[in-house]
């Protein structure tokens, strides 16, 4: 309990207010519903709460104890200790949104730097101050595209190899827009299609085409031809990225992306059972005034000192109200800060290095698994650090076996793609040693022979 009032103070305050009891303050509340008895467990002291939470946390198996080859949208990366050490500063985590810039230059400059880092990493002109996560960033891209064409283009093309959760979220967000068609990822479409296969779906009624890079199966494609076709149709190309991959791969800005979105979790954010994560959102200059969410801009004070403010706030919901195209206010401030610290610490050298480590280790794993009887790689494109393996048995069965050996196996693709039964999506990062990969291979081989 964090209420500081002593009995004497409470009495004195009630006297000042001119009431006799706390109850008197609640006369406006309908009497029949007033002061309900709540069926909650009795209050714990900190010592007891810690014990209880430790027990809950201890009831999980975590990726410090398990060997993790699970990815599919959340990745097990190394986070330098300096990141959390800065997040723990009360001035960062107990501050509000920087509405009073004179006493919020810390948050504001940090976000300004975050925007710059994201713009540079993605090769785009400008980034916003973050969205909730990759999926909502993708949804906001769809909203932007819709409004960019003033609702006149009624089709959105979603690649089937765009993260299924991203696609689901886009669908939820766009449900309020009557007559809009979201297509491209129907069950009839080959999940392993190439970017070129999407081109025929793009027409003058298309507002945007969304693809992933590397895609959900880990594959790396050159989207130049697709971008050209999309632009020829006057539509926008939205690219969902894995930021780790951008440490070595061409930035989407280089092949013509109009909007880049992405899940920022790999940039120094713990997996934390799925959140809080970070929605990356960057665009070309053309769309600055249509971006949802906050933007920090540089300016000066009366003495000419450089400072930062929230800018273009006229776009935001508290000013435009029902004219606003997004209602986002609180975003992922502290998580954006974490990623800014992570990117600053790793820098040009470290970001490349991590990307290459992921790449080499994943390729070693893939080539070894490909040699195991009963297993084969089943998507033939270049890949980054995730790849699809065709297995001799259902993935759930294999994973149960792996778990017995302390290994968290790959993602069961049949959950999202019913036709991909026995298809496992494996992720390998800098955290996986050769020894672990070899152990994975040994157990996989063993499962096949059981």
């Amino acid at each position, binding site marked *: 309990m964090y209420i500081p009032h002593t009995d004497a103070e409470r009495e004195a305050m009630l006297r000042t207010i001119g009431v006799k009891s706390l109850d008197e303050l609640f006369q406006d509340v309908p009497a029949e519903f007033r002061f309900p008895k709540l069926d909650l467990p009795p209050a714990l002291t900190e010592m007891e709460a810690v014990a209880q939470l430790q027990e809950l946390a201890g009831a999980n198996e975590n990726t410090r104890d398990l060997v993790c080859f699970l990815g599919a949208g959340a990745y097990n990366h190394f986070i330098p200790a300096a990141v959390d050490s800065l997040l723990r*500063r009360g001035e960062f985590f107990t501050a509000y949104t920087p509405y009073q810039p004179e006493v919020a230059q810390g948050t504001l400059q940090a976000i300004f730097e975050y925007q710059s880092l994201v713009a540079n990493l993605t090769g785009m002109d400008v980034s916003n101050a973050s969205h909730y996560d990759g999926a909502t960033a993708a949804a906001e891209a769809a909203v932007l595209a819709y409004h960019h064409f003033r609702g006149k283009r009624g089709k959105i093309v979603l690649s089937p190899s765009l993260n299924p959760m991203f696609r689901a979220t886009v669908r939820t967000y766009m449900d309020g827009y009557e007559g809009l068609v979201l297509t491209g990822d129907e069950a009839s479409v080959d999940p392993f299609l190439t970017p070129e296969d999407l081109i025929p779906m793009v027409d003058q009624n298309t507002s945007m085409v969304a693809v992933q890079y590397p895609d959900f199966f880990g594959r790396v494609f050159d989207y130049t031809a697709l971008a050209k076709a999309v632009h020829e149709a006057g539509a926008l190309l939205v690219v969902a990225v894995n930021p780790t991959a951008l440490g070595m791969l061409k930035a989407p800005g280089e092949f013509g992306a109009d909007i880049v979105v992405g899940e920022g979790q790999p940039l120094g954010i713990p997996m934390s059972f799925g959140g809080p994560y970070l929605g990356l959102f960057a665009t070309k200059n053309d769309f600055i005034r249509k971006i949802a969410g906050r933007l920090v801009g540089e300016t000066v004070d009366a003495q000419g000192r450089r400072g930062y403010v929230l800018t273009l706030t006229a776009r935001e*919901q508290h000013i435009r109200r029902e004219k606003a195209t997004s209602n986002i206010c609180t975003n992922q401030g*502290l998580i954006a800060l974490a990623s800014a610290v992570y990117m600053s610490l790793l820098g040009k050298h470290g970001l490349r290095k991590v990307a290459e480590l992921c790449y080499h280790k994943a390729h070693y794993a893939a080539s070894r698994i490909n040699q195991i009887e009963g297993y084969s790689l089943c998507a033939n494109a270049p890949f980054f650090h995730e790849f699809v393996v065709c297995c001799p048995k259902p993935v759930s069965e294999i994973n149960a076996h792996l778990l017995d050996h302390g290994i968290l196996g790959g993602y069961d693709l049949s959950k999202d793609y019913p036709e991909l039964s026995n298809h496992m999506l494996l992720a390998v990062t800098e955290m996986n040693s050769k020894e672990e990969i070899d152990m994975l291979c040994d157990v996989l081989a063993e499962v096949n022979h059981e």
Partner: protein
Amino acid sequence: MSDPTIFEMSSPGRIGARFPEPDVPLAELPQEFLRENLPMPELSEIDVIRHFTNLSRKNYAIDVGFYPLGSCTMKYNPRVNEEMARLPGFAHTHPLQPIETVQGNLAMMYELQEWLKEISGFKAVTLQPAAGAQGEFTGVMIIRAYHRSRGDLQRTKIIIPDSAHGTNPATSAMSGFEVVPVPTDADGNVDMAALRAVCDEHVAGLMLTNPNTLGLFDCNVKEVVDLIHNCGGLVYGDGANLNALLGIVRPGDLGFDVMHYNLHKTFSTPHGGGGPGSGPVGVTEALAEFLPGPIAGIVEEGDEEMAPLYGWVMPAKSIGRVKSFFGQFGMMVRAYTYISMYGPDGMRSIAEHAVLNANYLLARLRDTYKVAYDRVCMHEFVLEGHFADAPEIHALDIAKRLIDYNIHPPTNYFPLIVKEALMIEPTETESKQVLDQFAEVMVKIAEEARTSPELLKSAPHNTPVGRLDEVKAARDLVLCCWVPDKA
């Protein structure tokens, strides 16, 4: 003094965090896909630590002092919550792990859902929404889905009182509804006559902030709810002000159909300089099947010997996902810890002391500042930040002058229905001493407004920068650091 940006500090070739050399045979790199330029900063660890440490020192925060930002519920963020969210068993679990390996997470989420239901009188809760605004969006989409599922397709309007939060109209619009505003009456309640006038068969619902943004509990709340229900609409409760109601009254009991919670306000998960928030949504039985999912549920009942098996349940007619995975899990751990340390009596005590603190401040400031709607308030109240005898002084000047006294300004110019609004929410974690100090400063500033208005107009005086040129910021847009590599 301006700190250089990380790009300005960068030195070509400098290396911060290092990583091991590969322990596997090297694969060939895909030359055609490699980027040529990675224009990221090159810094050492000490550069990074100093830079962000010094930036943090330019921030005001709850940890530094009083932060009476109306409608934001800037209460103390307990340190134990931070530790709990960082326990490896929580922080290092992958969201797609088999349920058998994450029973602790699922049990925690399940219990938190149960507690949130109990606290506000709803029958089902989803923890998925990422923040209050997304909770609102979720709620409105559920209202939409509900009517649609009944084939009731004529309901295109959402009624929103003008004392509501600004997100409400934006949310309704983005969900495809037409927004119908209704005014506030002289007592600060919803204008019943105006409300009656707009209630018809096109009403999908009403979004009610209660206590409203004036800090007042709507005396007609039951009538409002009944009116809407009677015309076939649903009532959405904006849970941003739930702190005032904990253990006092349950929105579900009052007839609300759907409501979002702000874990980062009511349940003290830190605001983080602008997030992450967390915006669970509670609904009545009738709306449960529309919730976004998956939701933590019991998939195999337990018995005396065995704990139940927790797993994921997808509501039958779910509106779908509103984000990846299950929500802001780390925030849930914090809120869970927080609620478990208060218990049922503690919940009520939170609201009682939040309301006590607001009324105490109101009593101390009533003679100095005009009060827009002067009655017993709930957790916050709105003053008018201007004086007849000091016409050049605006709410903004008072706000900025507070900074000189090391106090964070209240929310200003909101709600829009009060002239020169100063919206003050002290929260229950502030002591009488802090409130007294604030009241004295506010009185002093009112005096200064008359005697030395220039002190207010030129405030703040001791901050790293003075008032900033926002027009320039929006006109000469600079949204990225100058990057040496690109120059």
